[in-house]
Structures are given as structure tokens and as C-alpha cells.
């Protein structure tokens, strides 16, 4: 885990609150330390998540918003390295972060520096696909066997009892059950 002082620095870096010297030091550390880069990436995602609550509360597909944002902000500083990416990889990499141009840039650094990026493009792509699946199917088990669906519902009710996050998932989960879609 990244130590508290360094996370403070990363946060300050994102807020542009560091002196030039400190900034250089943090950027150097980011290039060196994979854990630190992961923290940095998460902070960007969190920032995107936090900023989104300023917008309308209605439908929210952060992924789409992020993609949209990338469209608005071409990142010229990627030029040097783009040839190393296949187009699909670039797309996936962009989706992964993209809260700001800087974030994309730092992510791209990671692709060069480390042979083991924290998220592989495949992971990112499959995460997106899973989400698309989730949205298409709606509130029913994706099985053609009604007996299996009924049993899974029963298990879900039994499982809910032990969910530690009753305040949030509790309502969500039981809600899922109450509104379970019986339609074809």
C-alpha cells in the first residue's frame, strides 16, 4: 500500500497545490512506482465520480461521459507513444481513465514503463462488455430454465440476510427481488 504522505502528495498534485520541486519529485516517484500509479489512477476515477454529482442526477453512464470527454480533449502529448498501441488498445486505455488529459498521459507512461499494466486493455474491454450485458438483460436471471431462476432468487433472499451493507445493498437487493421481471 502507498503511504499516507505520498497519497497526500498525489492529491495535492492533482489539485495543483505542489511547488515545482515537490511536483518533480512526485512525478518521478509515479514513474518509478506502480502502486503509486494505481493510486493516482483511482484518484482520477474517484474525482470523475465525485464531479459527476454536480451534473443532473438522471441517467449516468460514466463510461460514456468519459469517452465523450476524451473526444473533446485530444491529447497531443501521446504522439510519441501512440505507434506502440493497437487502435483497440488505445481506445480501451483511454476509457480506463480519461478523467483528464493528464490522466491519460500518465496512463500511457505506464504502458511504456511496465510490462504489466494494472489493467490490461482486455480487462478494460471486458469490463465494458459486462456492463453492456447487464444493461441489456434487465432484472431477471439470464437463464432459460425457470426452475434455476426460481432457485437463484431463493438463494439471493437467503444471501441478502448476510450482506454486511444492509443500508445500501440491502434495499437494492430486496428491491431487485420485488421488481423481478417475470416477462418473456
Amino acid at each position, binding site marked *: 500500500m502507498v503511504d499516507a504522505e505520498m497519497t497526500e502528495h498525489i492529491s495535492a498534485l492533482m489539485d495543483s497545490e505542489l511547488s515545482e520541486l515537490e511536483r518533480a519529485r512526485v512525478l518521478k516517484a509515479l514513474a518509478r512506482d506502480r502502486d503509486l500509479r494505481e493510486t493516482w489512477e483511482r484518484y482520477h476515477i474517484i474525482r470523475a465520480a465525485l464531479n459527476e454529482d454536480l451534473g443532473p442526477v438522471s441517467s449516468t453512464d460514466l463510461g460514456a461521459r468519459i469517452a465523450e470527454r476524451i473526444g473533446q480533449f485530444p491529447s497531443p502529448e501521446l504522439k510519441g507513444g501512440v505507434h506502440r498501441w493497437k487502435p483497440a488498445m488505445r481506445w480501451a486505455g483511454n476509457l480506463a481513465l480519461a478523467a483528464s488529459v493528464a490522466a491519460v*498521459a500518465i496512463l500511457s507512461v505506464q504502458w511504456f514503463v511496465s510490462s504489466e499494466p494494472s489493467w490490461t486493455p482486455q480487462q478494460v474491454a471486458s469490463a465494458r462488455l*459486462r456492463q453492456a450485458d447487464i444493461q441489456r438483460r434487465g432484472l431477471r436471471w439470464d437463464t432459460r430454465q425457470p426452475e434455476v431462476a426460481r432457485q*437463484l432468487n431463493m438463494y439471493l433472499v437467503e444471501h441478502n440476510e448476510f450482506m454486511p451493507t444492509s443500508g445500501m445493498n440491502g434495499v437494492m437487493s430486496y428491491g431487485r427481488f420485488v421488481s423481478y421481471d417475470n416477462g418473456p
Partner: protein
Amino acid sequence: MRYAGFSLFPILAATLLLSPGTGLAASTAATAYDWLMKMNRATRELNYDGTFVFQQGQKLEAMRIIHWADKGSVKERLVSLNGTAREIIRDDQQVMCYLPDRKSVVVEHRLARGKSFPVILPKRLEQLQKHYEMQLGRMPARVTGRDTQVVVILPRDSYRYGYRLWADKESGLLLKADLIDQMGSTLEQFMFTQVNIGVTIDPQELEPDVSTDNMAWYWGKRIEQGTVTLFKGWSVGQVPSGFVLSNKLMRKNPRRNKPVEHLVYSDGLAAVSIFIEKFDKDGGTAMKGQSSMGAVHAFGDVINDHQITVVGEVPAATVELIGKSVRARP
């Protein structure tokens, strides 16, 4: 040339200067945790009556919730406002599911230790922080006309989901929640559209509206430890880092009237259940492989004539990893 990308840094530094404020601070994890506890307390201590929507993809469901709490005791009624008027009424002892479309009432006895509703109770902040990044929003946000505090919890790996939570500043009650994946994409949303907090609840409001005439009743119950030895020889070989066995019990399946072993693994925020029961080769339908409902995933397999089912509000990879590691001991 390990640091081939290093030359980017001067440009990067320039870009950073143009970045907007993050609205987050590294030291807020502890405060975020305090807010989680506050939300949790609100569920256990407050009366409320409201309408919320639950959104998943294109689906939007409206539900009414009536929640009564007194001295650690809780009773809650959840009614679907669209389609079939299904209801769930739960208290410290049982969960009753009224399903008029199936002409049935399913009753599950609550088997969890302690009388109150399950609470968040993440073991300890440090432990939780190993698997989640927690941040507090600085920006003001309003939900259903009330001021809220935003808390974002992002998983550090792909074996669990994260949350974006909006808690009522005054009472701590959770007013809106997004279930998010590791990339911050919203998978599901829950949001109050109207809520009265701290109101008096008429006991009549906690009774079902649906008539139970002509409904079939199914009762589940706990089987005391030691009375059944059927499933003693099972082991779970692999769980994602941070998940530990939090409950282990035998229960009777209310639909099939058969004993089921139920194991619960939790990392403090996410939970996964493993159900093991004898597979009925003549009349049963085996569940094999992946299945999902929204963000809830299940994985099934039949091993040694037993149906193994793993269920949880976790990514598909998690239920599969656990499900594939369940073994019958020789």
C-alpha cells in the same frame, strides 16, 4: 530504457497545472469511514417512509419503503409500485416475500447472529483500506431536496464493486447509491425521490396490502448444527484476497424442503454465499456455469452429486473463482 516514457513528464507537469481541483483529499478515508458508520446507524435507528427508484440499464423500478426502528429492533416493508404488487416485509426474525403473481408467500427465518439487521461493520478501517479506496466529496450535492455528503468507495481490484453514496447530512440516511465497477462506471442506481425521515409509523403500514387468500406458503428454517452430517466434507479452496468465512450454517430450502449448507464469505463490504445441497438427479434442474441478474452474479456446478451455487453482488470473476475451487474432500 525502462523509463522510455519519462520524457513526457515536463509536458505532463504543464498539463497538470491546467487540471481542475480534485475535490478530494487523501486524508478523508477515515472521515469517509465515519460516514459509512453514520449511514449504518441511521438504518438501525431511524423511522422513514419514502419512495425510491432503482435503475438498472434501461429498467427503472419504483418502490415504496416504510422503515420502523426502535431500540435496535427494525421492521421494514418494501412494496413494488410498478407491475405486480409484490411485497417484502422483514423484521428481526423473518423475511416474508408476498408474490401475488405466483400465488405464494415465501418465509425465510433470519438466521444471522444477533437480532438486528445486518450492519456494515467493516472489520476495521485499515483492513477495508487494503481493498478499497475511500474518499469524501467536498462539493455540495442535493438529493430529493436535502443536502448530502458524497462518499466514493472504489475497489482496488476487479473482484469487488465500489459505491458512490449520498448520505443525508442531517440524519446520515442513505438517499442515493450507485453501484460502480473498478473503472467507475455505474452499474446500478438507487435513489429516493421522496422521503420523510423521523416520522411516526402506523403499525398498519407495516402489514401487507395483498390478500393471502389462496396463496401457498413456503417456510424455510434453520437446521440445528450436528443434526445433519451430510455435507461435512466440503472445502472452499480459493477466495479473493480479503474475503473471510463470516458465517456457516445449515438451512432448509423452503421450496425443495431439503437441507442446504450455506457458507458466507465477506471482505467487510461485499459478501458471497456458497450453497451446497444434494442434487436430485431425477427431478432437479442442474445449474452449471455463470448466470447473472444485473450486478448480481451466480456460478453453479454439480460435484459428487451435489449442486454447488455461489451467489453474490460481486463481479462474475469472483463467483467463478470461488465456485471452481469448491471441492469434495475424499
